[in-house]
């Protein structure tokens, strides 16, 4: 069933569908990011395709290949019970992809996930693009293959809070090293 849909899309768009694939029951197409929105809109609106449900979006980092990233959209048709994948290759130098949230609102969180974990930007989103799991101000994108497993990157900075019980905060000028030099109460020697 899903092969028929893939064929239909491939016939309709011709050159714009770079490649089709069928692997272990997953059928899908490779497209360029310039044609992504047009093809996704066709998938959503077409009677035969009827791919109304955005199942998921993820990204794979093929470090060393060019283009480096591969976005994988999984779309499903509840009525016709078929699903296809749309894959888009994105290069490391220009990791920008048009957003599909105007068509599939459910991709909102998945796009935030891909931005957070892989650093791929989405343009023309309905809502601002924020990180999903890491905090704003975190440096780097953890699921990239060149991100260290035990990195100490992007530690959460201590807020400059002056008015709570524990006394004056460290402030923007203080250094973590000088703070560490001061013994905390628990580290003070026990006098007997």
């Amino acid at each position, binding site marked *: 069933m899903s092969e028929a849909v893939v064929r239909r899309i491939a016939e309709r768009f011709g050159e714009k569908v770079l490649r089709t694939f069928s692997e272990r029951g997953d059928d899908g197409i490779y497209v360029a990011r310039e044609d992504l929105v047009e093809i996704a809109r066709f998938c959503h609106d077409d009677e035969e395709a009827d791919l109304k449900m955005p199942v998921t979006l993820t990204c794979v980092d093929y470090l060393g290949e060019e283009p480096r990233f591969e976005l994988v959209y999984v779309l499903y048709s509840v009525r016709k*019970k078929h699903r296809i994948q749309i894959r888009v290759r994105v290069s490391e130098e220009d990791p920008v992809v048009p957003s599909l949230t105007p068509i599939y609102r459910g991709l909102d969180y998945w796009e935030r996930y891909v931005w957070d974990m892989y650093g791929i930007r989405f343009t023309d989103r309905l809502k601002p693009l924020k*990180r999903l799991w890491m905090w704003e101000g975190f440096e780097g994108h953890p699921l990239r293959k060149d991100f260290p497993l035990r990195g100490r990157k992007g530690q959460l900075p201590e807020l400059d809070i002056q008015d709570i019980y524990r006394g004056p905060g460290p402030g923007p000028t203080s250094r973590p090293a000088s703070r560490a030099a001061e013994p905390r109460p628990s580290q003070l020697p026990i006098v007997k």
Partner: protein
Amino acid sequence: MPETKNAQLGQPEDVLEAKLATRTLSLNLGPSHPASHGTVLFHIELDGEVITKLDPEIGFLHRGFEKSCENSTWTQCLPYTDRLNYVSAMCNNFGFLTAVEKLAGIEIPDRAKYIRTIGAELHRICDHLTCVGAMAMELGGFTPFLYAVEARDLLWDRVAELTGARLTTTYGRIGGVNRDLPEGWVQKVKDTLKRVAELRDDIDALLTHNRIFLERTRGTGKMSAEDAINYGFTGPVLRASGVDYDVRKAHPYWVYDRIDFDVPLGSEGDNYDRYCVRIEEMKQSERIILQCFEQMEPGPILVDDWRFVLPPKNEVYSTIEGLIAHFKIVMEGVKIPAGTVYSYTESPNGELGWYLVSDGSGRPYKVHCRAPGIPLLGGLEHMVVGSLLPDLIPTFDLINMIGGEVEQ
């Protein structure tokens, strides 16, 4: 100075007609709040008591699930999948293993399929009990919660007899399950299910026709079928909107095609329908388990293929082939053929999808978990905007967002 609402609406500032000047209030609910479970921080904009904007902030439980999986062997990923949904760990275990087996092209033995179905359905009942009980508690009814926890604990005792653990089961191996049903377990489960059915009917009797409960849930958190599909909803929340999509029926896996069960559907798409769908699904799960006990026959529970499964101990100690197979699996991990796969099973909250990429080595290249809770949380704003703040609580409870899998 903030712009007043009257000025926004362009209403005359007449002395007799003048309304009190109001402005929206921003409120932070969570990440730890007595009326919600899970660590989610809601940034809410309130106009009076009406929600105008909702922005859930998640990530407090993020622990790098995918990164950890990429740096461990396929078998070592299995304990991580328990922690995704700690209420129904077996659904996640088996969902992940099904994806790996699809990638490797393994067909597991019939008995293992039945055991997986039984385990997943037991945990589905646990998950729905938790959801319904916790929601009742957060709406002010403590008794149903205690009933639900009693029933859940009974089931967890049976799960502990089967797997050795109550919560983090790590049950199942690539190619089957790691042990057969214990002696006399089937009868125990049948007795337990009778007691669970009684407790479930008690919860049902306490809530379903309770006027306070009806007023809190009926008509709140509405979602139309088109919107639910567009937001990527799956599971009981989608079915409460009247969309007939259950992976077990639409794309049967394991033994669901041999079993007679119904998929309950709602009509309104409100919280009351979601609650009713969950209650009804518990009854269906019970039916499925009892049919599995009838149908299953003795047989192997693991595939006999030493590329994927540890050889029996007497072979390891007495033959060189067994020893080498054991060594290769323990030291290098199970080698899964290179390729990609998207596999999906029905977990209690919806479609649990796995996008796996293997490069042919013993470690996964990429493990993506499509947690059903992420789209549900993404659609929460659409469900509650325009309704009262107290409606957020049942709506959030009934989408049953599990922090472990949404924040990974």
